[in-house]
């Protein structure tokens, strides 16, 4: 995995020497990566590990996220080695079979002749990462959009390449079943047949504190049949929008879009 273009926002004075340019680019990349605090566990924690998501320093919300589907049902290891403990297996489908499972790249490392990728693994507890061989994943996909859910302000904002594209009031988790905060992504998108979820629903990789639903208890972003409760904190962990707002959000968001709940 290679990082997104590092040149964006970096000094580009033609009179600079090649070495100074390179140093400036490296500095700009490092600065933007740290400033944006990217994926939940995207920190470069070891030698030789390169981040797979980057941000432009023009906006902290101008981020590029890379992800892929599983190409094989192979193990996800805790470290970049087949001798490392197994965290989970790569899955072709999401737990509820609602979509093909996506995995977000965190960083990469070459060990011998093998390219290893550190990926975010959707599972309980939230925020787990593991390592897989690059060949076990499919083609790299890219997302330039970002959803920020501000629980305190009870708003959802969609950024596209750092620019606000959509914002709406939301209902989030009630005090007894709060919406777990963190860095997740959209894993599913589908029409809902239940008025409770409104006309459209997105599934995230965030697992709720409410485990009433044994098959998943996934935090969704969906419409509602109780719009009078929005904004507020009426849900079991899901993020509810008014039906007209979820329908506006529907064409703007695709699977892979990061969701930062804060």
């Amino acid at each position, binding site marked *: 995995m290679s990082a997104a273009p590092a040149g964006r926002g970096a000094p580009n004075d033609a009179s600079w020497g090649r070495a100074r340019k390179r140093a400036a680019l490296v500095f700009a990349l490092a600065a933007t990566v740290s400033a944006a605090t990217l994926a939940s566990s995207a920190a470069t924690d070891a030698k030789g590990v390169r981040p797979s998501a980057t941000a432009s320093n023009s906006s902290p919300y101008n981020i590029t996220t890379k992800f892929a*589907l599983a190409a094989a049902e192979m193990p996800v290891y805790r470290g970049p080695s087949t001798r490392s403990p197994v965290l989970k297996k790569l899955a*072709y*489908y*999401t*737990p*509820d*079979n*609602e*979509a*093909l*499972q*996506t995995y977000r790249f965190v960083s990469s490392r070459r060990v011998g002749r093998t390219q290893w990728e550190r990926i975010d693994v959707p599972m309980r507890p939230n925020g787990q990462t593991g390592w897989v061989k690059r060949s076990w994943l*499919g*083609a790299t*996909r890219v997302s330039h959009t970002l959803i920020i859910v501000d629980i305190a302000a009870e708003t959802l904002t969609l950024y596209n390449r750092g620019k606000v594209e959509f914002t709406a009031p939301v209902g989030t988790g009630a005090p007894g*079943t709060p919406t777990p905060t963190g860095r997740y992504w959209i*894993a*599913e*998108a*589908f*029409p*809902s*047949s*239940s008025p*409770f*979820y409104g006309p459209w*629903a997105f*599934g995230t990789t965030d697992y*709720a504190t*409410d485990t*009433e*639903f044994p*098959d*998943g*208890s*996934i*935090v*969704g972003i*969906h419409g509602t049949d109780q719009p009078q409760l929005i904004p507020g904190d009426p*849900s*079991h*962990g*899901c993020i509810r929008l008014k039906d007209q707002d979820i329908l506006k959000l529907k064409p703007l968001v*695709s*699977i*892979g879009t990061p969701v930062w709940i804060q």
Partner: protein
Amino acid sequence: MATAARSHVSIKRCGTKYTPACTVPKIKPKPPSPACVSAGTRYAVPAITITSNAGIRRILVTDAPKLVRRITFSGSGPTQFALKGLGVSTVGLTAGGHLIIVKVTDVKGKSASKTLRFSVCVSTPVFTG
């Protein structure tokens, strides 16, 4: 059933003293969309590029066990073929994951297969609400 690229000359493209070794056919689909497909609609199968240095004899596409498409080439067959515009009806398909299997056989009898996956939308999500 479709027949294409009729040729009267049998070309030995591989496996001779003067040609490279014959390899198994390669099947390269475009990445599928991870999003589910609504029931009662049509799933557009991603374009698939098939290559074979010996020449392609037969392509079978199945939505197990239903046959979706069968293409047979006579003569030496093409070395490359792009399979586009394939669709699978989701009428009657259960919600959840489904497979499409592409099997290619070359003129030497070597075959390869690739499994493509898609999902039919589940009407009742397991969200916490």
